[in-house]
Each structure stands twice: as C-alpha cells, then as structure tokens.
C-alpha cells in the first residue's frame, strides 16, 4: 500500500455521490457527479512471481510496455486504465487460450462507500484464504468500491505469435488445432492466432491449410454480445451488419450497436440488490450505474 491509496481514500471521503474515471475509454464517469481518479503508477513487477502491482489509474498500455521489458504480459485488453479494464471486465480476443479478465486479479485494495481502504484476495498466484472477492469486483463497474491498488497475474510472452487465415469450417479448426490463442470468424473467413515455437506453428498451419497473414481482421466495436459458444453460428446467421465472432468463446463484435436482451433470473437480481445494499447502502458510488444494465 502506498500513501497514494490513502490520499485516494480521503478524496472519495465517507459521503456524497462520487464517480471514478480512468481515461474514459469505457464510458467515462457518471455525469454531474464529483469525479475522483485512482492512483497511477507501477509499484512492483515480479517476473519470477508472475505478478505485477500497480495503481488502478495506470494505463494498460503503459503496464504492458513495462511488463514486456520483463518478457511478460497480462490478459487485460489494451485500452484505457487497469482499473477501467477490471471494472468493465471484458476480455481480450485471445481469451480462448489465455482466459478471461476475471482470472487476472489476485489482490486489490479498494475504497469502499464508507471511505475505508479494504484489502481483498492475496498477493500470491494461488490463494483460497477467504471468499473470492476479487472475482466479485471484476465487472462490478465501480458500484461496490473503487479500486485503488491491484496485483495482477501476468504470464510470459509467447516465443512467437502469428495470425493465419483459413477457409475451413471454424468449429473444425477449433476441434483440431492445439490450443490456438484465438479463432475468429466473420461468417465466411476464419482467422487463427497461434502462439508458441515457430516449428510448431508452421506444422499446425501446414496441416490445416492456413495462410499466414500480417494482421488480424479489424474488430468492429459498435456493439458486443455474448452467447454460449455452441450457439454462435445460429446467433450470427441473420445478422445484416458486419461482425467478428470469437469461436470457442462466444463473444461477437458487431459493426452496429446491439441491445442486450438476455433475461436475468429474479434470484440473481435479488442477490445484486442485497450485495449493493451491503456494500453501498446509500448508492453513492457511481450512482445510476449497475452491472446488470
């Protein structure tokens, strides 16, 4: 913990509506509410532990550059701040191999609605001491507390990482390739990212008639939807706009905005109400925002 965390806690203070923002790449602060910004800066990079600790206000790009110097990286998508990426919780396009953002947060210190600093999780890569509060916070859009300091799991950069194109059925490639980093599909063409040793990549590509390409496809960003991976083909069949689907994962990136119409079970809504009520009884943190909307 650094004094910056205490300063941040003092800024949040114990009362009155308040909203947190990073670089506003993911929706920004709540309008007309007092704005606070979390601490900035990398505090400890430990390649041998596969962990990094930083202020939640640190830009993801900056964090990744620092980690690259240690041969490491982190699963956060490369935009905005670390705190924003965690608060929203959307994963990057290599989730198929490297997992979701929710698996990256090992420990955090957040400022709660009472203005207190609260520690959740533990500093090591493996830990089951107490409830898994870190996963609760990833994707909570700043409604339970404002992240101040976070410790993230890192992983080594792959030896090499390359994109390929294929015309085969995407699910066929998913079934046959060994742990591709990503299998993307636009309804006709499949792009595959393979990470690993050069000879292995070439052998896999040759086996499945993949053609090397310089770049991944452009990922549309107007809309995002989430589907059981087994329903991806059906979910995208009637789309009239351009899309990229993450095969094996279930995220679809749309060129047009989409509305989330998935129903939420009453019991789940009730749990959200009870959690919010206990963590922020006066609704002062990011007022009006909800992880359900």
């Amino acid at each position, binding site marked *: 913990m650094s004094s910056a965390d205490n300063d941040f806690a003092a800024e949040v203070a114990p009362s009155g509506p308040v909203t947190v923002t990073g670089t506003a790449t993911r929706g920004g602060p709540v309008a007309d509410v007092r704005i606070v910004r979390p601490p900035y800066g990398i505090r400890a990079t430990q390649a041998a532990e596969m962990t990094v600790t930083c202020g939640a206000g640190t830009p993801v790009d900056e964090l990744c550059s620092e980690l690259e110097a240690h041969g490491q990286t982190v699963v956060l998508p490369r935009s905005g701040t670390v705190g924003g990426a965690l608060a929203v919780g959307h994963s990057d396009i290599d989730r198929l191999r490297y997992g979701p953002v929710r698996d990256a947060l090992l420990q955090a210190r957040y400022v709660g609605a009472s203005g207190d600093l609260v520690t959740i999780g533990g500093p090591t890569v493996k830990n089951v001491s107490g409830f898994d509060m870190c996963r609760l916070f990833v994707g909570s859009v700043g409604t339970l507390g404002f992240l101040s300091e976070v410790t993230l799991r890192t992983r080594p950069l792959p030896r090499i990482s390359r994109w390929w194109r294929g015309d085969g059925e995407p699910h066929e490639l998913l079934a046959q390739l060994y742990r591709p980093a990503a299998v993307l599909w636009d309804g006709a063409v499949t792009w595959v990212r393979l990470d690993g040793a050069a000879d*292995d990549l070439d052998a896999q590509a040759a086996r499945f008639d993949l053609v090397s390409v310089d770049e991944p496809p452009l990922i549309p960003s107007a809309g995002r939807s989430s589907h059981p991976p087994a329903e991806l083909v059906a979910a995208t069949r009637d789309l009239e706009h351009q899309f990229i689907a993450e095969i094996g994962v279930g995220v679809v990136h749309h060129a047009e905005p989409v509305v989330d119409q998935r129903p939420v079970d009453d019991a789940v809504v009730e749990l959200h109400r009870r959690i919010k009520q206990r963590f922020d009884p006066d609704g002062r943190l990011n007022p009006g925002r909800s*992880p359900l909307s």
Partner: protein
Amino acid sequence: MSRPAHGPLVADLVAALDPDRVHTAAGDLWLYRHDASNLTGRATAVCFPTSTAEVRACVRAAVRHDTPFVARGSGTGLAGGAVPPEGAVVIATSKMTAVRSVDPVNRTAWVEPGVLNLDLTRHVTAQGLHFAPDPSSQQTCSIGGNVANNSGGPHCLADGVTSAHVLAIEVVLPDGTVTELGGEEPEPRGLDLRGAFVGSEGMFGVATAVCVKLTQNPPDVATMLLDFDDVADGAQLVSDIIAAGIVPAAVEMMDQLCVRAVEAYIEANLPVDAAAVLLIEVVGLPAGVAADVAAIRHLAAARRVGAIRVAADDDERALLWKGRKSAFGAIARIKPNYYLHDTVVPRHRLPEVLEEVYRIVERHDLLVLNVFHAGDGNLHPLLVYDARDDGVAERVQAAGEEIVRVSVAAGGVLSGEHGIGREKRELMPLMFSDIDLAAQAALRDAFDPRRLANPDKVLPTAASCGDVQAIPDGAWV
C-alpha cells in the same frame, strides 16, 4: 428398521425424500461427524438427495426449522469444511453423479456435484479431453467439493485452479431458491456471482450442477525428475524457470525424507540420497516442449543439479507421478499419524521459508516431509507423528501455527488450496483487518442473511475481532 422418535425437522426431511435416504441412526451420524481433518461435529440427519428438487427440499426443511445445513461431497476436505455445525442437516451429494452432457467441440460439460474428479476426466478421455484441476485426492473427491474449495492440483500451475474451469453453477441458494450463477456464455450479465460462489466452502448455497470447461490433452509431454544436493538449489530453480518465461504444466518438489518413504513404498528407483527432487512436466506441441526441456536443463545446470531423469515412455511417466501421488500412503510406514499443512509463499522466498520450516519442526522435536506444488509456491509440510506420544498433539499444533505465521510474514497466504474451513478461521486476522473481514461478512450475508449455510466456517467467530483467537481443538494448525 425401527427409527428413534424424531422431531418435526426429520419428519419434514423424510416426507421430502425417500425415507431410506434420510439417515438418523447414531452410527450413521457418527460416520459423517468429520471430513479428512481432525475436526468433528454433530449432525441431526444425513440426507442423500438425487435431484435439484430434493436438495431444495432439504434446504427448505432446514430453514423452516431454523437449523444449519452443510453440503458434503466426498468428505476429503482437509480444513473441516464439511464438518457439520452443531445439529446440522448434512446434504450429501454422493447420489448425484450424472454427467448430464458433454460438448466435445466447445469443450464443456454439465455434471452433477457428486461426480468424482477423476471420473469426469475418464468420461471425456476418449474425446481427447480432461478436467484440468487434479487434486492428489482426485480419485475420491467430488466436483462439488472442488467448486466449494476452489481446489487445485499439480497441473494447475499453467492452467489455474478450479475457478478458471467453471463456467456456470446451478445452485440452491440458502433461502431455498434455485438459480444459475454464471453461464455458458462468456460474459453473463451482472456481477460474477459464479466467481463468488466458487471457493465459498458451502456457505453460499448448494451446487446441484456445474458446467465445467474441459481442456485438450497435450500432443506431447516431457516428464523430468531432477535431483539436488541442496534443497535451496532446487527451490531456487523454480524461480529461475518462471523468470525465464517458462510455465511448465507442473513443478512438484519432494524432499529427502519424502523420497525415501516413497521409494520404500513403490520402488521406482528414485534418488534416495538427494536432498530434494523436482518433478517437472512440460506439455504442448513437440518443438515447444523440446525447447522448454533444453532451457530447463540449462537453468538446472547453473543450480548444480545432479542427475536428470526424463521419463522414456508413458509407463515411466506414470511411475514418477505415482511416486508423487502416493506420498501420503508412503508416510504411514514412518509414523501412524500425519498432519498436512497448506500455505503459499512467493516463489522467490521458497528457499528461506523451507529452511525456516525445518527449523520450526526441529525445535518442536517433530518430523516433517515436504511434498508440494513448488511451481505455485504452495507449501505442504507434512508433519508425521505418533499420536500416542506424550504431548505430541500440542507440539504439532504449535509447529503448524508457526509455519502459517512464517508463510504469511514472508508475503504469503493462509491457504493455497485446502481452504479455511473451521481449521484456519481464527487465523484470518493474520491476513485481513476487521474492515476487510467485514466486507467478506457482507458478501456472506448477501447470500445467506439467516446464516444457516455451513455457518461456522471461514469467517472468524467474531468477524470484528482484532486479534487471533484460540485455535479449536483438533485443528490442523
């Protein structure tokens, strides 16, 4: 069979389930008073539901009578998680063992909570898949128990522990409603309640079905056994490997006493004169595996490695793993009783913390075998003793608590995979302040406002207590 007269709670349970699946005889209750820890409790009834609806009926009956309930898988937990709170209804999942569905392409399966860990992997072997978390107890522990404890295993180093392999959970919440947390889709709406449930040690409800992620079997595997004259060299190599950007599938360490016990037990031609051995497994495509093996050899040379034995075939690989996994059976030859600890330290502190563990154990005149997940820094000091020796229980307890304190002081944590349960709840203040614990209590109260779901676990007796309280009798620390 004549039944003793019972109160309205048992009458409700019997009405809800087939009476044969509600056990209340003293002998039956005796069997379910403990798990694999030394802690004990007392149940009012042990129920064996066969469906989600029956689990719900059990929970509702318990709640109606203001009685605590506890879910139980195979009872292999080591922290007392499944030990019944006083007078509790035990909800055993051992009759819920169906694999409901498998999707081999998207690599998911829906399973009931009583499915045993290894049975799940066997079920999908023909499809070239496995369930990645592989606790050493995998032949007997249940998926429900794995979920509740967020269990790990040797092969969780590269792929993560249970939470990373669970997509959705059908649960009976503590108020008796049934819902699904998480989902097959990657970004379910709302908070990650699935993530909060995993590792909640039966305190957030009963899992009645789990959607797990399955993992492809690797095309190539290299299993190496490296021996060292100095434990610290082996421990240091673990950090070197990770720092060099290599994440093996597994990195396990056994010290001399453990290797000797195992060798006497299975005769695998293990290096019994080495101070410690590392069992390292690298998996993947052939070129990557070969490059990792070469790099590890190189790093090991710099740490004065002795012999390096690479398993020549699957049989030899199986033998080496058998050595690792039979450590618990092997120790029975040294002393009749054992006490297994579970803490994590940052990898780079492994050499010094191991030294300290040896010193602590010596000070208490005990014997320790170390057999552990070195890649994760997850220590498992195994104290072996003879319970008939005078005052030994106190010494085992004292040494255990010191080991936990030393681990936390080194920047580590209370538990890496066994959980807090009843065993370590009073040690939670070593890691968390009153304010931190209040946040955890708030989450628990949101799931279980009436505090009937396995209530005497995880959180310290007074979640606001400022100091470490007395450790319960029979706790492992």
